[in-house]
């Protein structure tokens, strides 16, 4: 079933294996699409960050590239007015809930949010939306790393690392809605959780929420 397909992304002919996810096909071919939550090996992507929108010929609305399986003769455009509008809004929404202090952030220069801004010419500002106050203390309790929930974008990369790769089960999403966050059992600090400090979650975090101590 690993038939090869040919698709067109932004006018560029690309070969891929049928069933692969469009996002990774594009990335592997040097075509950038903003993304935070996608995990290559997940069969059913969480698709929660809502930044990887593209337009596919034949579909009336932009769709997320991380959920689309590539098909032969698929024609994809990564930049259209509709796509740009959604990406801009999604990006501004994420920033409105983010402790925006790049200069003091350990991830400065390597942050995926900065990457999106650079690639898409977006400002690192909340724009139309007023910042949602966030005054959450940083958890410095582990010896090797820190967790700053105020910078978390809820992509779920760390949960995947903890639960499916390290198989520890120290962290997960807790609460619902606006209160949703990455947490431990009964909101304990990480040192009092089963965390083994393997560091996989820190490496997985695309932003400055989980960072190694230096």
């Amino acid at each position, binding site marked *: 079933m690993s038939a090869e397909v040919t698709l067109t992304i932004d006018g560029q002919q690309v070969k891929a294996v049928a069933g692969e996810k469009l996002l990774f096909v594009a990335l592997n071919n040097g075509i950038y699409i903003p993304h935070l939550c996608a995990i290559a090996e997940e069969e*059913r*992507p*969480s*698709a*929660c*960050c*809502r*930044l990887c*929108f593209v337009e596919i010929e034949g579909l009336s*609305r*932009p769709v*997320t590239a991380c*959920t689309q399986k590539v098909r032969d003769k698929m024609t994809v455009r990564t930049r259209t007015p*509709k796509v740009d*509008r*959604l990406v801009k*809004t*999604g990006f501004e*929404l*994420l920033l*409105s*809930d983010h402790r925006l202090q790049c200069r003091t952030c350990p991830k400065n220069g390597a942050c995926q949010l900065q990457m999106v801004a650079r690639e898409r010419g977006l400002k690192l500002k909340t724009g*139309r*939306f*007023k910042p*949602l106050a966030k005054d959450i203390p940083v958890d410095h309790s582990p010896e090797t790393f820190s967790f700053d929930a105020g910078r978390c974008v*809820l992509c779920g990369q760390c949960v995947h690392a903890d639960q499916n790769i390290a198989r520890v089960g120290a962290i997960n*999403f807790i*609460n*619902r*809605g*606006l*209160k*949703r966050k990455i947490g431990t059992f009964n909101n304990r600090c990480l040192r009092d959780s089963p965390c083994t400090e393997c560091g996989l979650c820190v490496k997985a975090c695309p932003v400055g929420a989980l960072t190694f101590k230096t």
Partner: protein
Amino acid sequence: MSAAPVQEYYQKLQEEARTKSAAQKHLPRVRVGVATCSIAAGAIRVKEAFEDEIKAMGLEAPVIDTGCMGHCYAEPQAIIDKPGHPPICYGKLDEDLARRLVKDFLVDDDPCFEFAMAALEPNDFFPTFEDYPRGVYEKKMILGQCGFINPEDIGDYIAQGGYAALAKALEQEPEDIIREIKNSRLRGRGGAGFAAGLKWERCRAAESDIKYVICNGDEGDPGAFMDRSILESNPHLVIEGMAICAYAVGAAQGYFYIRAEYPKAIERVRLALKQAREKGLLGQSVLGSEFTFDIEIFAGSGAFVCGEGTALVNSMEGNMGIPETRPPRMADSGYRGKPTVLNNVKTFAYVPAIVRNGSAWFKSTGTPESPGTAVFTLVGKINNAGLVEVPMGTTLRTLIYGVGDGIPHDKEFKAVQIGGPSGGCLPEAMLDVPIDFDSLKEAGAIMGSGGLVVLDEDDCMVSIARYFLEFTQQESCGKCTFCRLGTKHLLDILDAITRGEGTPESLDTLMELAEDVRDGSLCNLGGTAPNPVLTTLRYFRDEYEAHIREKRCPARVCSDLILYYILPDKCSKLCSACVGSCPTEAIYTREDGIKAITQEKCVKCDNCLKACPPEYLAVIKLSPPVLPEQQEGVKN
């Protein structure tokens, strides 16, 4: 499949049930509506009064629990069925009236027509429900037995032909049933209106030994309760529909997903399942056939988003109720990764009648694209609130003025909100829109959950939009960016507008963001959450502008934009009803005896306005919140 034994088995069941009910025919019977709504209105006390009095009088007359007839404005209700009289329905009962009915009617033969609502059979003395306008416009396909049969006695259901459709179905090939349902064009009543037959067909075709049927009784719309009412009033109808579906798609296990806030519904469904098992209608070899099917109940834990199919499945699997991306579709991979049919309570409720009477019968009601009936919880500023069932294609005007008997207190109609938090508000000019899936969608509302709220001149559309958005914002699962954060910003903007802090730009941002949340969200909670905002912006933009430009709430609802004022020339110096009513002692008596309000103390609770006697009506609300004294520049 051996056909004859099934019929034989069923005939025997039905005979038993009929013999049992015939044995009681000579007795007078009192059926008291006991469902969540009526219990709240005091039905239990009324029922006990009937029982006590019947005992005291030494009568033999069973008092039977039934469900809800849908006439919620007249709860508690009872039907008295006395041989020699037509069955008569009485409304707005209390204990005294119950006792009086026992004495005057059961003992003395005076049916007390002055308290009667309607008779249930045509007769020469008293009109029936069909003789009222509401009865003319209504057509009951699934609510017909609600309130009349005893939901706690399967015999009642069987005696009236219940489970005959299942027996008939078991004699057919599954494919025939699916074809019939497809031909009937039955569309899902849970909101989106997806063709039930197609869903079933896909699930039947999916390759798997194990398949599931799930009934969605999550009913999260904060203003709708017909699913609960059906489960409480006629649970076997839904069970029968699910069993037929299971047979058609090849499932052996079914689930009721019912919200834990509906204890009465859970209790009655649990009892119904037990009775159905005892009669051989569920379990191994249903009705003596080779078909095996059973149903369990899963109690949802209170999260609106769990009504969404993938979230519902996640929660049944012991996880947070978080929606997943589709495909795969549920019919291919649903509960435990197996092919699953998920339908709404009402969708299943139509199935027995369609199987019994055929798809042509079903299609003879309603419109070609949306056949059948529409069931609504009709509430708000309406005279006859309750559950209504009308043919699809009925106009909103007929529903509101014909069935619901219009707006109380001579107020002016302003809008009708359809479909709850995912729906929209339609103005007067749209009242001739026919009620069907596609027309409503075109108008910007959706059929949705079936909540239908009538709003009048005293309702502020910005505040209504804000109310629904607050609901969805709180109920967002929080997974995806647009819904989690987008609804929060929408709410904040609306909040600012209702406080008079909106700017002309905020309307543009509101509109843009609403569209982006609609298009960018992962599931339909976020996808439909902006509808109340988008429709009010479309049809009631002037109200938004009044809030922004004039700091005025035209309906005088938004508390930051109003103040309470006592008209000096209307106030009777002698009365002080308002003074006592005020919880914060904000009202004082001026030297001339006239009452006045200390604005700083006023918490805008509305008490004084309600307390002021109708002959004076001296308390009014002003918007924008400027005192007449200040307006004229005169100091008091």
